[in-house]
């Protein structure tokens, strides 16, 4: 596609359930980022993938969070046993290199009830 695509755009889940968020980056982009943005806040770094290198997971807030990326394609962010504090917009971005502009998706708005 022409841009970064995220699905679903909205997700409402019950506390304690697992959720999986998907990101389709721009074709050919080697770098992929996940960020969390709480209402009225800035972007909180979660995880960074670059090519076939080991991902930088230093921003994942707990072991309930995990992410995978197959090669230079789709990435999934999984949150297990969701809590109300996980409610936020989860943004995915991709870029063609390590210090180049990132292109963001529209985000997945997660609401945990």
């Amino acid at each position, binding site marked *: 596609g022409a841009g*970064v695509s995220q699905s679903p755009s909205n997700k409402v889940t019950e506390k304690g359930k697992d959720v999986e968020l998907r990101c389709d980056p721009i074709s050919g982009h080697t770098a992929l980022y996940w960020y969390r943005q709480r209402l009225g806040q800035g*972007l909180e*770094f979660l995880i*960074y993938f670059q090519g076939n290198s080991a991902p930088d997971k230093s921003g994942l807030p707990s072991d309930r969070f995990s992410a995978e990326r197959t090669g230079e394609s789709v990435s999934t962010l999984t949150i297990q046993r969701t809590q109300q504090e996980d409610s936020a917009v989860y943004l995915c971005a991709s870029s063609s290199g390590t*210090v180049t502009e990132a292109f963001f998706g*529209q985000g997945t708005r997660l609401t945990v009830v």
Partner: protein
Amino acid sequence: EDQVTQSPEALRLQEGESSSLNCSYTVSGLRGLFWYRQDPGKGPEFLFTLYSAGEEKEKERLKATLTKKESFLHITAPKPEDSATYLCAGTTGGFKTIFGAGTRLFVKA
């Protein structure tokens, strides 16, 4: 600890009233300083990348500058359509990009 701090949190301007947004950073081995614009309900949109102190870039009414400790986004004669949140981000030596909390700009006609 790598950190990016933006000020002010919010800025209200009259149309045509020029001003500047500040981004101070402590980022180990800074590889690049980025400015993005974010409209409500959307993902951030790229504006500028600055790589070294003294560098400046311009686009329409916006001009970004970089020193060794901070970056400024100057807005000249803003229009209501410039209203948005402006985000600053730094890429570390380890290629992780961290964002500031943003400055919410409101421009009144």
